[in-house]
Every structure is written in C-alpha cells, then in structure tokens.
C-alpha cells in the first residue's frame, strides 16, 4: 500500500450544496474516457425520536484518522476496479434536515464498475471511517446517531 498522499479534501464545513455537486459533475466533461457516473448523496432525515423530531445532525470526526482511512479505501478501490475518477465529501458541523451531508462520486468507462464501487464506498464510509453524527432534536436535546 502506497503511503504517497494525494491531498484530497474530504471534509466540508456544513451542508454540501447542490451547486458544489453540479460543479464537480461539470469538471468531468473533459474526461472523455468516462461513460458512467454513479453518485450517492446522503440527506438528513426528519426522524422521530421519542415523539421529538430531528432537526439537524452535527457531524464530528477524528479527521486525521478518517482521512487516512478514506485514502486507503480509495487506493484499494482503484487497485481492484477499472475506474476513471473517484471523489468523497463529508460534512462536518451542523447539517439541517433536507440538506446533503455525504457526496460519493465514482466514474468509470462502463456502468458496472461505478455502481459497484459507489455502493461499496458508502458501506465502508459508514462502517470503517471515524465520523460521528449527533442528532439534534427540536427541544434542543440530542442523541448520538446509530448506523444501521
């Protein structure tokens, strides 16, 4: 496993905007080997917890360790699949209900690889990367999110 670090910014303060997503997509128009983009967006749901509604999730991370973990996940995916491009962005801080907190973007020549890797990345991000979500309820109390 290479220890060379391509500095890829993962964490963004607050919600990920649709405009940012559009700009990311537009940047790929010059990559003429790409035939398929698979994108996953995580959006904050208005879950009900003991009759109280979630109004936001506040994300925190062990940032250095998370970046290393994501770097390894990326390298492994590139080594195992025929990919053209891969980007992962995750929010830190408060993300309100209806806003985007996770943006996974995988591009390949043909659709199979991008679908497969996009889904795998999301699973690994939720399971293996030190990020925590604190669900802020309407009465200002909170509960720590549990991933399914």
């Amino acid at each position, binding site marked *: 496993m290479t220890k060379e670090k391509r500095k890829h910014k993962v964490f963004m303060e607050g919600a990920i905007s649709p405009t940012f997503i559009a700009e990311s997509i537009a940047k790929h128009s010059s990559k003429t080997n790409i035939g398929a983009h698979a994108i996953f967006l995580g959006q904050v749901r208005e879950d009900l917890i003991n009759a109280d509604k979630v109004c936001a999730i506040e994300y925190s991370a062990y940032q*250095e360790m998370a970046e290393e973990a994501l770097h390894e996940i990326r390298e492994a995916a590139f080594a195992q699949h025929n990919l053209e491009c891969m980007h992962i962005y995750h929010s830190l801080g408060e993300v309100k209900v209806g806003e985007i907190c996770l943006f996974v973007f995988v591009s390949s020549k043909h659709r199979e690889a991008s679908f497969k890797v996009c889904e795998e990345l999301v699973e690994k991000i939720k399971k293996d990367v030190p990020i*925590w979500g604190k669900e802020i309820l309407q009465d200002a109390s909170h509960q720590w999110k549990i991933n399914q």
Partner: protein
Amino acid sequence: MKVRVLVFGQLKDIIESDELWLEGLAHSDDVLPLLQAQFPGIKNLQFKIALNKKMIQQGVSLHEDDVIALLPAFSGG
C-alpha cells in the same frame, strides 16, 4: 510518561472534554482501567481504542507522545 487521549462521539458527553492527558501509563492494557476509575460512566459504553491513528488489535507498549483515541461506534453518512 504522559500520553494524549482524544475523546470522540458519545464519550464526550461523559468525559466532558475533547482531549485529556493520562500519566503513568506504560502499556495500552492500562488505559481502560485508568479511564474507568476516573469516569465510571464509560463502563456502559462500547468503544474501541486507536493508537496513533491505527486500531489496537492487541496490547502494546506505550511511548512518549503517543496519541490514544477513544472511538465509539462510527455513525458517519
């Protein structure tokens, strides 16, 4: 010898800090008893321990400037 301990997720509610320093620790197996003595509330919580950004798979000796992290179940995404 002092080691730095980073606190994450739900553990912050109990330890009431992002970070603390522990003294007199020579081995990773000593971390948990010392923490539980200081913060009994953490006994009810599942969490893992990382040493210098890697999960500890087995007990290891600690060194000056080591960074320990207390990691409850991840819930990103």
